[in-house]
């Protein structure tokens, strides 16, 4: 490490290591609870994916070999990526505004954000349905203004899913981004301006790189949550763009095919863990200390 070879000797202080006492005894009840009600069921489900209807990887072969299912996988990724991109595009300016606005105003905006988060998910999704449907408020006002002649197809398609899910995901991207942006000293941006950087250069070369860890963790959270989302795609999406969670629900509820359901769940889990590992590698704690 550079700290050991620092010729000035200024950075050479060694922090005392905090030794944690690992004592599992008191946490046993909680661990047992998690094991019995969380870990075991997941394993049981995953086990069924290789045991039912007969032992082997038949379920996986069917799942990954069929274009119908692959289209659903692809659609799941497309919707999740779209929701993540739109959430970032809206969330970044909002987080930036929250970070620089007076605290009295920002607490009002936070209250609105949290209030929407605490409102029931179904209520919010049905609200979007009412707003977006053919005879909904949005189409009616646009037609009333004479901007369109025919109602726009805003629901039961990709547009509806993206709008509905972005709305739900926004707080999850704004909160981590706000935390990161708030820690950036505004004087750093003033320094960039005096160095000759235009607003755009200050944004792309200073602000976004400094906010990148927050952007990545927020985006990953939204992407992963979107991958497994069920309610909003089921209500606002159409049959043409089914998502993975809907497929799993169909396997389990309608077709009572636990083997295929488990296989689809494992694919989702593997993708999620891979993305998480990638984030840890790129922006994990080990990378933050510099060289």
């Amino acid at each position, binding site marked *: 490490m550079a700290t050991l070879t620092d010729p000035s000797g200024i950075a050479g202080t060694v922090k005392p290591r905090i030794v944690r006492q690992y004592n599992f005894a008191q946490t046993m009840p909680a661990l047992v609870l998690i094991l019995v009600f969380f870990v075991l069921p997941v394993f049981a489900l995953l086990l069924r994916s290789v045991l039912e209807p007969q032992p082997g990887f038949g379920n996986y072969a069917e799942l990954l070999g069929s274009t119908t299912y692959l289209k659903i996988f692809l659609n799941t990724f497309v919707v999740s990526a779209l929701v993540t991109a739109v959430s970032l595009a809206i969330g970044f300016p909002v987080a930036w505004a929250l970070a620089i606005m007076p605290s009295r105003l920002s607490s009002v905006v936070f209250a609105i954000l949290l209030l929407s988060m605490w409102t029931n998910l179904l209520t919010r999704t049905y609200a979007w349905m009412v707003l977006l449907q053919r005879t909904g408020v949005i189409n009616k006002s646009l037609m009333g203004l004479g901007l369109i002649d025919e109602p726009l197809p805003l629901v039961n398609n990709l547009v509806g899913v993206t709008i509905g899910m972005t709305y739900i995901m926004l707080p999850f991207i704004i909160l981590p981004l706000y935390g990161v942006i708030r820690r950036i000293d505004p004087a*750093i941006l003033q320094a960039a*301006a*005096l160095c000759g950087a*235009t607003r755009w250069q200050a944004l792309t070369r200073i602000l976004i790189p400094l906010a990148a860890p927050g952007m990545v963790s927020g985006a990953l959270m939204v992407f992963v949550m979107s991958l497994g989302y069920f309610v909003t795609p089921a209500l606002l999406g159409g049959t043409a763009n089914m998502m993975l969670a809907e497929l799993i629900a169909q396997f389990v509820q309608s077709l009572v095919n636990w083997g295929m359901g488990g296989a689809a769940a494992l694919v989702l889990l593997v993708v999620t863990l891979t993305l998480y590992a990638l984030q840890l590698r790129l922006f994990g704690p080990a990378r933050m200390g*510099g060289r």
Partner: protein
Amino acid sequence: MTEPFLQIRGLRKDYGIVTAVSDVNITVERGEFMTFLGPSGSGKSTTLYILAGFENPTAGDILLNGESLISTPSHKRNIGMVFQRYTLFPHLSVGENIAFPLKVRRWGKAAIDAKVKQMLGLVRLEGFEDRKPAQMSGGQQQRVALARALAYDPPVLLMDEPLSALDKKLREEIQHEIRRIHQETEVTILYVTHDQEEALRLSDRIAVFSKGVIDQIGTGPELYANPSNRFVASFIGDSDFVTCKIISMRDGRAALSIGSGPVIHGVPVHGKNVEGGMAALMLRPERLSLSRAAVGEGAFGLSAKVTDITFLGSNIHVAALAPSGETLSVRLPFGHEAAAGLSRGDTIFLGFDPESAHVFCG
């Protein structure tokens, strides 16, 4: 007559009903080191921020080589600045930080590399270009900030209390560096500080700010020898204030008396005419003479009782209480005969040359 290099004319900044600065008029010569000195809230930083383009003035103008800067945004002013806080870009290395202003100016790679090398040499941080700011001490970071601010050869460098976060020893070390860099680059520097010692050490001229206006502009010795008001007198150097009675005022000189003492003629006077009224007489501690007897030259009946004697190495500091209740301090060089055998509770008599004193009226 040639156009002045930098002119600040009638600058004023209001925040709602609060006036941060008003009536600021300064002319700075090319290559000059000008310091804005004043307590916090005196408007010195506001003036600097208007120069940087972070604030718009309510009224007034700034002319650089005769051209107004007011409508030019910060990033087009081509001015350098070192901030009070550490403002190096934390995700860039030292070399990349210094290269940043050159990259946004679209310099070629070879030119950038050469300039970065030259700037690192200027601030004596050769070999540090791959360090990240977090791996450097505060003093080193401010030196890199200085290198970054000077890399594009700005005509003017602004410095906003750049050393206030550093400890005293490091501060003095970097003050020397700043002096050397000023001499080497001949850049015009506008420097903000609340530290009078720092201002005296660095500056060609000092503008003393108080309550949003400039009280006085001058070289350090000028401000020390001829302060225009009580605030400047108390802010630059140490000073004693004694209440006196003005007997007459004429041609900038006053005749006055202290308590029931004799009339003292020819003391420089500032402020409005208050003949017959009271005023504040300012004395410099090192210009006071101290005697144990009430008689002799320069004895103006200013008697006092010694309350404290402090040995400060090269000089001795005597604190004394005047009959009026005012505390006076006297500074004597080490080994001065008047200090020999002096002890707490002794009565002493103080004298001074009228030319070295000042009276502030109103």
